[in-house]
């Protein structure tokens, strides 16, 4: 049959003007009884008959590969249909929220993660695409997608960021992958097995290029602990300045390290605590101080010696000082302490410094409760306040949220509203919805920009309330 078909096809390709094919040449019972006059009709009749036979007798090829092992089980319950639908509407932009649809998507993801629920499998592809486009959302997307997402991502290079590397492949991948992939792999590994990750770095350390060594050290901020200290201490002697700087930056975050103690010795030699603070500016750093990472880098707005002081204070454990001294400190000491508090993530000092002199960096490092308490104490709702508000983490407490809106409305601070629009949409407690709507009702129709922000805000709060309700 197949040779008959091939001959028929050959004749058809060149045409009956050059080569004919008669029906009776097909080895099909009854074919010779088909009435067809002329070479063309014979060929067409043969095509009708043979193609029917061919199609009926078609046998599928047998695939002999080994299917990839299926995705691992996911014990988490699927989110409610309403929650899933809401996410779909947000992802495909059917619901659009002025200035912050993606923030609401993040809110959805965070709520799902907190509730221990997963999206329906059909949404996995859309979320992988969303995470590919929005780098900052990748960590939470990976958590929310769970094993199904990690499994699917392995089949598409664009989704590599979401794929789990099987443990047995980690060493091999770390040795052979591109630089970006290696750093991503290490960052993942630091989150779960920081000690193993460090061992991998130590194994190849001497053979890496300087830029790579610095990049590898940068991933240490994930899962950093005193067990990383020996490698970091060693890296302070690195021949490349970038690596030394990276090591010093990591050690800044370890107030229990030997380097921190050395810095404390330098700092206490300069600052005397008595009746108030007596501060002596440091001399040119010696070789030991240079090794510990004190550089000639100028802090903006300060002279050479003051910059050295700030660097020393920034690397000194805050336990060296009493927070009650903040009120007596000069600006360069405050700058040094602020850097130290941020790097050591010391909530007590962060809060004390923010109460004394609130700035966006400090506010952004505080827990929502402390941050909003400090914000509530601010007297003027000006542009500076808008900047602080935009920096504060959420979720904001209900009482603060409603009071904030009412204060803003009373003081007619529409510029703050616009400066902090995204933060408001993201962090304001849904209980503030009534206050937002109340403001909107009384706001003059000509205040178009403010009205737009308020409408977006009301919409965002409604959607967020729905999300919270669906994940309760």
């Amino acid at each position: 049959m197949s040779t008959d078909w091939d001959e028929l096809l050959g004749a058809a390709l060149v045409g009956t003007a050059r080569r004919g094919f008669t029906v009776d040449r097909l080895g099909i019972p009854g074919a010779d009884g088909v009435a067809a006059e002329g070479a063309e009709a014979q060929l067409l009749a043969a095509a009708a008959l043979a193609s029917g036979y061919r199609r009926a007798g078609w046998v599928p090829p047998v695939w002999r590969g080994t299917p990839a092992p299926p995705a691992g089980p996911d014990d988490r319950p699927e989110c409610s249909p309403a929650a899933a639908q809401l996410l779909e509407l947000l992802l495909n932009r059917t619901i659009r929220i002025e200035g912050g649809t993606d923030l609401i998507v993040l809110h959805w993801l965070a709520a799902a993660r907190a509730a221990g629920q997963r999206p329906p499998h059909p949404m996995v592809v859309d979320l992988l695409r969303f995470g590919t486009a929005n780098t900052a959302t990748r960590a939470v997307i990976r958590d929310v997608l769970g094993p199904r997402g990690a499994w699917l991502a392995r089949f598409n290079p664009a989704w590599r960021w979401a794929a789990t590397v099987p443990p047995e492949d980690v060493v091999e991948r770390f040795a052979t992958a591109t630089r970006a992939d290696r750093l991503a792999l290490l960052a993942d590994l630091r989150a779960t097995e920081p000690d193993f990750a460090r061992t991998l770095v130590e194994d190849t350390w001497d053979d890496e290029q300087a830029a790579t060594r610095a990049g590898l050290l940068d991933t240490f901020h994930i899962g950093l602990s005193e067990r990383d200290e020996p490698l970091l201490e060693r890296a302070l002697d690195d021949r490349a300045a970038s690596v030394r700087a990276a090591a010093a930056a990591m050690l800044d975050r370890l107030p229990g390290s030997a380097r921190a103690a050395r810095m404390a010795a330098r700092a206490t030699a300069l600052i005397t605590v008595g009746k108030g603070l007596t501060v002596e500016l440091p001399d040119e750093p010696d070789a030991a101080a240079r090794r510990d990472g004190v550089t000639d880098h100028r802090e903006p707005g300060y002279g050479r010696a003051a910059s050295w002081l700030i660097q020393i204070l920034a690397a000194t454990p805050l336990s060296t000082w009493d927070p009650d001294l903040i009120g007596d400190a000069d600006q360069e000491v405050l700058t040094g302490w602020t850097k130290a508090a941020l790097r050591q993530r010391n909530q007590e000092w962060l809060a004390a410094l923010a109460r004394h002199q609130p700035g966006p960096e400090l506010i952004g490092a505080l827990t929502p409760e402390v941050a909003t308490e400090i914000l509530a104490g601010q007297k003027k709702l000006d542009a500076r306040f808008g900047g602080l508000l935009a920096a504060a983490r959420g979720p904001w407490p209900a009482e603060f949220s409603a009071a904030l809106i009412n204060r803003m409305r009373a003081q007619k601070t529409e510029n703050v509203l616009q400066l902090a629009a995204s933060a408001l949409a993201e962090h304001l407690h849904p209980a503030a919805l009534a206050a937002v709507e109340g403001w909107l009702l009384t706001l003059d129709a000509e205040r178009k920009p403010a009205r737009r922000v308020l409408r977006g805000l009301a919409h965002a709060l409604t959607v967020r309330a729905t999300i919270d309700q669906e994940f309760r």
Partner: protein
Amino acid sequence: MADLGSRWTVAQVLALAPDSGSAKSARGLANPRTWSDLGSNESLVWGKCQGSARAPYQVTVDLNEPAFRCTCPSRKFPCKHGLALLLLWSANDGVVADLDTTEPFAADWAADRAARTKSAATGRTPDPEAQAKRLAERESLMSAGIDDFERWLHDIARQGLASVRRQPPGFWDAAGARLVDAQVPGLGERVRAMGSAVHARHDWAPHLLGELGRWYLAVNAWRRRAELDPAAMGDLRALLGWSRRTEEVRSGERLADRWHVVGLSQEEDERLLSQRTWLYGEHTKETVVLLDFAAAGMALTVSHVLGSVVDGEVALYPGGAPRRALFAGDEHKVAQGEGLPGATDVGAALDRAARWQAGNPWLRRVPMALTGMTVVPGDTPLLVDRNGAALTLAPDTDVWQLLALSGGHPIPVFGEWGGERFHPLSAEIDDRLVSV
């Protein structure tokens, strides 16, 4: 949010869009800011949309059909306002709430519609003589067109497929247009489609040869139409595109069953929007297909929900299995299905396909309910059953979605088989049919 199950998904709403532009505009309009007086009840959704005109458009949707009413001047149907209203409603985020009182404009329209449906039942009786004359005229027009088509087929056979492939697209379009003019639009559409297939398909030569054979078969069948049995005549008429009046079909053969909606497929070209709804009968084990058409830019009046189970009679078009059908009008939804009924392995499905194609050589899309199918991604993605029998997935398949749904596990899949390509329409996940 307790009533959410009864609201549609975005996909269901957007499936009603007459074209992608309308879907896009509707999404843009699905914003509570441009709407007022929104509300819904069991069968109606209404709202006023502030458009470019001074007075807001009054928009109402009857969810039962669904049917749309909007006071805007758009000639698209449904218009973007109707779709946007449904999108808002489907979000079920409190923007469109279920209300006890209906806006007057919505209630009035619903009442008008109910009255019209009643009066439409009384029809007119046509003049039989004029009808016979029209029929004879049509058949002679078709015969002339088919004679001309046969000469065209002979020309192709004489010149050879290789030289025909070098013809410009106008070669196929012109032949297709002549068939349309001769009131043989179905065949015309198949001829037109070949214009791109001869270039797009790597197996273009066997594909074209097979189609030429089937077209030639149609020419001969038409000449001998007096000898054909009703089923064969039905298949021939379906191929030629000689439609039947639904009243004629309704008064013919019927089949009662509990029907599972197992697959939905929509296609749109510049002229026509068509939807195939595949139904599987629980007791008769028959697979039938509902075909709904609308001119491009218009909406389909009927939409069935994938996975639903409907009790009722269908009226069958004359033809071989799988039969085209339409609901006789007494159907009602009884349940949401629990998966894909009647699924087999690839071998059994191909055997059945061969039997069906023996009865109807022009059958192009063979429904297949397959069990235990594993998705194998790759340059040519495959669907493989437990015996290793592999079907190539159609190029427009969203393989990622299928893979995400299955998680690498074997799953039941429903789809259409044709031209050695499988086009999946739905898959069973956790005892539920999901569109793919």
